[in-house]
């Protein structure tokens, strides 16, 4: 394939002319080499709320996408993925991760079975090389489609009603599309794939369309969206919603085994809380032996959700005569966690670190995602986390919580 753009990075997504016109804040970031909107408005708040009350429209085209076709496609993906892809029936999507031979996670993403030995893999990082290396000897054709397919995420409670107005040529109505299923349809007369997936933990869909039809599809969604409270949304809003949903992020909450200079930075699916995506008892797959050993011997780390104690947090501010303050954006810096000592008021030894977090405007809670020693992973366990108040490093209590923090019934209904 000939690359379309020879301009300096970052490069525009298929929807760029539309997002550019709406992005009055000019607040962009580089996402895997593409221009991505952080927030359309000067503050992402309205975009965040739209996802929880109406519908947010995200351009998620920079996700890496690979089409795997041919008789050997299922075998290849079963070999690469922690999930047994041979069980993934046409029209279904699964979330999983993939490991190196040592059972350390390289990336996480989704696999869709589009039918007729055609699968689509989404990834946070370039994965073409890894798929090709594992495909040796198998009759498959692997194509990178990242730049050819535009992806839009429609996330929020009115997403279903919106899509049902504009989707045509489906085998079954969009209202019948269940969680983690997909269907083929047309929007504005162009073929699209719609999957009931997303990164917000809400009712939502992702629409996959070829580049040449991308703008028509955007326009139709946007026009119909006016009646359903649609708000174009950027990555800052997405970041808060994904924390509420308890989703981990490659490069933030863990490091891909590809990039780690030292062994201790790598982690396994079990350590990431992705043990549920590992189908161990089946023919060989990457990392299987190592994962079996880890399951028998125990893991070094666990990934958990944390809720920071608000009263202690507020008390630190009161001491300075300040009202409590939290950032409206999600954060992603490493913050130390400690075992509690002396009735829980004092820090003991370090037992892990929080990797990202956010104030949840919906739950009125200060949330974090953390890597922690397994013996502290039981929900309800109280630990301590560092906070910086008025330039001083202090700590507050935090409680281990089950994720998702926010899990509305409509997500699966």
């Amino acid at each position: 394939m000939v690359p379309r753009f020879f301009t300096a990075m970052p490069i525009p997504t298929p929807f760029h002319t539309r997002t550019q016109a709406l992005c009055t804040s000019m607040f962009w970031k580089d996402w895997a080499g593409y221009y991505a909107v952080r927030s359309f408005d000067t503050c992402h708040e309205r975009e965040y709320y739209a996802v929880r009350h109406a519908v947010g429209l995200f351009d998620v085209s920079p996700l890496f996408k690979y089409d795997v076709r041919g008789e050997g496609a299922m075998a290849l993906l079963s070999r690469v993925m922690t999930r047994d892809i041979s069980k993934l029936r046409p029209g279904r999507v699964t979330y999983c991760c993939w490991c190196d031979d040592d059972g350390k996670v390289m990336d996480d993403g989704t696999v869709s079975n589009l039918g007729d030995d055609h699968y689509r893999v989404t990834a946070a990082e370039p994965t073409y090389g890894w798929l090709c290396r594992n495909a040796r000897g198998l009759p498959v054709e692997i194509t990178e489609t990242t730049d050819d397919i535009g992806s839009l995420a429609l996330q929020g409670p009115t997403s279903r009603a919106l899509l049902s107005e504009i989707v045509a040529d489906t085998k079954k109505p969009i209202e019948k599309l269940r969680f983690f299923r997909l269907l083929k349809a047309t929007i504005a007369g162009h073929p699209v794939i719609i999957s009931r997936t997303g990164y917000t933990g809400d009712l939502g869909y992702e629409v996959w369309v070829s580049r040449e039809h991308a703008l028509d599809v955007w326009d139709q969604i946007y026009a119909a969206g006016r009646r359903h409270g649609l708000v174009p949304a950027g990555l800052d809003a997405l970041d808060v919603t994904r924390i509420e949903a308890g989703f981990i992020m490659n490069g933030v909450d863990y490091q891909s085994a590809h990039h780690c200079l030292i062994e201790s930075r790598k982690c396994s699916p079990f350590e990431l809380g992705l043990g549920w995506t590992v189908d161990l008892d089946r023919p060989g797959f990457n990392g299987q032996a190592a994962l079996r050993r880890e399951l028998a011997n125990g893991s070094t780390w666990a990934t958990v959700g944390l809720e920071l104690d608000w009263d202690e947090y507020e008390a630190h501010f009161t001491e300075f005569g300040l009202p409590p303050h939290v950032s409206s954006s999600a954060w992603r810096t490493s913050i130390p966690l400690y075992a509690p000592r002396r009735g829980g008021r004092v820090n003991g030894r370090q037992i892990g670190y929080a990797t990202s977090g956010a104030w949840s405007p919906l739950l009125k809670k200060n949330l974090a995602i953390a890597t922690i020693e397994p013996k502290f992973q039981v929900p309800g366990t109280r630990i301590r986390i560092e906070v910086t108040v008025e330039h001083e490093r202090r700590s507050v209590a935090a409680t281990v919580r089950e994720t998702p923090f926010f899990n509305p019934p409509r997500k699966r209904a």
Partner: protein
Amino acid sequence: MVAINPFNPAHPDYPGRPDKPSRSSYDAIVIGGGHNGLVAAAYLARAGRSVLVLEKRPVLGGAAVSEEVFPGFTFSVCSYVVSLFRPHIVRELELAKHGFELIPLECSFTPQPDGDALVRWADSARTRQEISRFSRKDAEIYPEFGLAMSKLSQFAKAIIDNPAPDPNAIRPREIAKLLRLGKIMQDFDGDTRHLNLKLMTSSAVDFLDQWFESEVLKSPMSVSGIIGTFLGVRSPGTAYVLLHHYMGEIDGAYRAWGFARGGTGGVSLACARSARSFGAEILTCAGVSQVNLGPDGRACGVVLENGDVINARTVVSAVDPRRTFFGLVGKQNLDDEFATQISRYKLRGSSGKVNLALDRFPDFTARPGDGPHVRGDIAIAPSIDYLERAYDQAKYGDFSERPYLNVVIPSLSDPSVAPPGKHVMSIFVQYAPYEIKEGPEFWPQRREAFGDAVIDTLSEYCPGLKDSILHRQVITPWDLEQEYGLGEGNIFHGELSVEQLLFLRPAAGWANYKTPVPGLWMCASGTHPGGGVMGAPGELAAKTLLRSGEL
């Protein structure tokens, strides 16, 4: 398939039922299923007590209620914005899990009769730009004013998050509470302390005059001082309420105000679901006619309107003080001094509501389009004289021909309240005095004229309004009393004026949710810290009751 509106009591998940109580005796009976009653019930049930909530109407929420008044349109019939709902209540009662979701108001839009308009945004740079069109000086003072008010609001926050201190008591807990407030006052610098005194005593206009010169800015700011009171913007004591606008939680100052998803009833239903999850029983269509007193004078249960008797160790009233003591307990069971205090307690409602179902969005002449400027509140308060003239008419027993209006269009932010492309408009109207000169019972005859005055007023700014109306619901103070149980139609269960706050609410010596009737407690807006959909009275009452050892 037509989905049943979740606020319709016929919905299978509706948290209240018109049933018989499952038992004959409870630890606590809560009279009134408004948001404070439900919050109190949730806290009591969470502490393991058996709790029964009795609501007169078929729907829960009291004045914090959503109802499908016109097919497909969900109205926040009475209370239309949620301010200062305590975040710790959301956490402690797990309200988000039960459907509590707030959408912050983005801005405040004030169209002018001359076709201009002022919009105050959450974004300070944008607000400065807007105000400087009217006064460059005001534009720069505006953030200074915000800073000063934020300092003062720490004092106010300490007040609303704690039971009122009793200045006459020598109990260590009361003294500690007073000292805590004193400490905050003491930590203020001299200027702030002076400002605090001015705030407690001035009129809203006088207070704002010290800072600003532009009427376009001052008028909409001053009205926050009069909402729910029978006072004008130039009446002393109205400045204090301005502070409520600045008691921003961490979500940011302006964003302390918001819409509940599904309307204000969304808050009440979340509280009800939470209460039920802790084991509370909630009955609708169960009006209480009397609080039963035992031979020792202790409240020991209630008599329902249908004659049923239900016993309880404590009775917690979530209705206003006047109705609680005169309606349910009876004057004959109160001592004279207390009865006098309650009869002097000022209710005197001064506002009404007009709720509209709209076929389409009607443009405002000053700034057409359904952009972000109309997603906050829209204030019709063009000048201070306008507001004061509106008050003049009310003083002499009329509704204002050209009233102050506070308009919101929640369907722009929350599509769940109207069919796609259609809208719900909620108009708060002041002044509509309970005591019109014909007498309050004549309000039904004047209802439509009142509605017309409101629509005519708004049409001057929004000419397409009349043509877009599909349905109109007019709520007078009389309706607020008769249908929603708000005595004299007062939305706060009694004026939020300084002489009725803190340890004086509802009566001196009885500000701690306890009443002179043993076993009878109060938990709603007629107690400290007062009205608004904040849940604080319900929470503080329940916590105080649990701590008292009576239950």
